[in-house]
């Protein structure tokens, strides 16, 4: 029973974190129909940023996420302006491959500049602290990250549904030309969406640095899972991404514990295939 609760909570926490990592991707995908292949590397860059802020300035990830989020906003918006915008719409998959090139570049750039060493930020305020919930042991840095993920996702959802800028984003996603006729500067919206996408992953990365080692390959598996989360949720749907992420976290956790740990990612990808074959546009897609 203890293990059941533990596995459940671990799954939910990991799921919530996947959710925040995937949210940005989902937004970009939904609005622009572009897969950002450098998403995992953005996560890695965010973690390095947070690590270096922690090392050099001594700022705790609990606060430095603001900075990593801002930095990634500009990095992501910049990569839209200089790379994605120039390749979009010209040929199938061109933006995908361009961002793939970017991911190779970023990964090797970080490897070259920061050495491939595994870096753990130590001395953070939550380091090693745990909370007990119904007999399960929960790591505080992870719990905080997970809760914050949920909050961020709610904020993001609210922003898109209720604010002016959010409506402009929605309008652009539905029909770019109509939105332009209505006076929406869609080019700016696209830059903004890419920036927000980067910001989400930047914030996620900032928090994750408090419990995960940083190294140039850290983003690889996260980005794969983020792709699956987004496709499973249905693109552009933030609630979809959240549900898919929680589902994937749970499947990973339960399959890992009750079937075999080595099967956990197999189960995740198999679940995705099974769902998407029944619902070709994901759980919340239409």
């Amino acid at each position: 029973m203890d293990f059941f609760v533990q596995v459940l909570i671990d799954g939910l926490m990991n799921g919530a974190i996947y959710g925040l990592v995937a949210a940005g991707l989902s937004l970009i995908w939904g609005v622009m129909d572009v897969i950002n292949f450098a998403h995992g590397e953005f996560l890695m860059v965010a973690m390095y940023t947070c690590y270096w802020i922690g090392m050099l300035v001594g700022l705790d990830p609990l606060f430095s996420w603001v900075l990593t989020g801002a930095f990634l906003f500009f990095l992501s918006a910049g990569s839209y302006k200089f790379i994605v915008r120039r390749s979009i719409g010209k040929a199938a998959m061109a933006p995908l491959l361009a961002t793939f090139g970017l991911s190779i570049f970023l990964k090797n750039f970080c490897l070259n500049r920061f050495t491939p060493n595994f870096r753990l930020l130590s001395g953070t305020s939550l380091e090693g602290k745990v909370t007990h919930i119904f007999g399960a042991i929960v790591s505080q840095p992870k719990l905080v990250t997970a809760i914050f993920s949920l909050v961020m996702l709610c904020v993001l959802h609210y922003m898109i549904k209720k604010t002016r800028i959010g409506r402009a984003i929605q309008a652009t996603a539905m029909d770019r030309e109509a939105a332009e006729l209505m006076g929406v500067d869609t080019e700016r919206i696209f830059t903004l969406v890419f920036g927000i996408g980067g910001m989400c992953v930047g914030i996620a990365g900032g928090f994750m640095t408090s419990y995960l080692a940083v190294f140039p390959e850290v983003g690889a598996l996260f980005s794969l899972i983020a792709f699956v989360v987004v496709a499973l949720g249905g693109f552009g749907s933030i609630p979809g991404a959240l549900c898919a992420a929680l589902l994937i976290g749970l499947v990973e956790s339960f399959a890992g514990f009750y079937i075999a740990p080595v099967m956990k990612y197999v189960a995740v990808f198999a679940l995705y295939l099974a769902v998407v074959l029944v619902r070709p546009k994901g759980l919340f897609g239409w």
Partner: protein
Amino acid sequence: MNDKNGSFMKSKRRLIDNILWIGLIAVLAALIFIPGAIGKSTHTHVLVLVLLYASMAQSWNILGGYCGQISFGHSVFFGLGAYGAGMAMVTYGSMPWLGILAGAIIAAVTSVLLGWPCFKLRGHYFAIATFAIVEIFGRVFLIWDWIGGALGLDYPIIKDSWSYFLWSSNKTGYYTGALVLFVFIFGVVRYIESRKLGYYMRAVKEGQETAESLGVNSTKVKLTAMALSAFLAALCGAFFAQYNYRVDPPMVMSLDMSMKFVLITILGGMGTFWGPFLGAAVLIPLQEYTRTSLAFLGPGVDQMVYGLLIIFMMVRQPKGIMGFLAEFGILGRNEKKEATGDDAS
């Protein structure tokens, strides 16, 4: 441009293409007979890789380029072929040929079984589904002991021979083999390009609904393209295993390998006959030579250059090298101008 003129241009293009194609084969084949041209050297290695990756890209091009189904799953078929050869050589200690054939057939059957449900998915959903398949296959193969699991299959050291398709003293055999593979796969594509299947595939790419309304059974066309594509990719995989004396799951069934198929084709020019060859001819030498020549700048610099080149290509000319050539009016009509003309109207 009137119809008559258009068809004249088309047949003229086809003639030029044919001359180029036969010329290319002749030059590549002649290399075997020029003493010293092909042997042990790194240049031979690079040539073999160019031919191999061009063949892989062309096999992908059948489904991705001509039929418009962007698959990130081809490393699965590639891997099945590699394992076919590897199992025959290592587990059963026999010649690889039957294993290669079995691997290729299994790959074709698998591709149909996977393609049949996956073709319901459109656009990026299809792409993501295919790479989920790669992840599943890669991970299952890692824990499947019968096929060697994570340990992989290592070729025994045996004498150089054609019957085992294994050489170590020089690469002439591999080069010849790669050339045969290259000519075969490109030949198949050249053949179907002008046959009914080729037109059907392009019709499906242009618009599935329209193609259906014209009486094309799009599912059947897509599955045929998929099976053919997988079969040919598996042959390339078998060659890869024979060439490297080893198979293990991360070597062949990885997303990395899948990306190679896509990247080379798109960088060369998707849906064109020459694209895969041009893509491989540019990317592979770049990758092989910069790895050694840029090493003094520190680790990873060669891959940074590789990444930048991809970005540059996609930003500058997403239609790839064929697009570049078309800008200069070489190898094909200037499609860009026509396209912009269409946009303006």
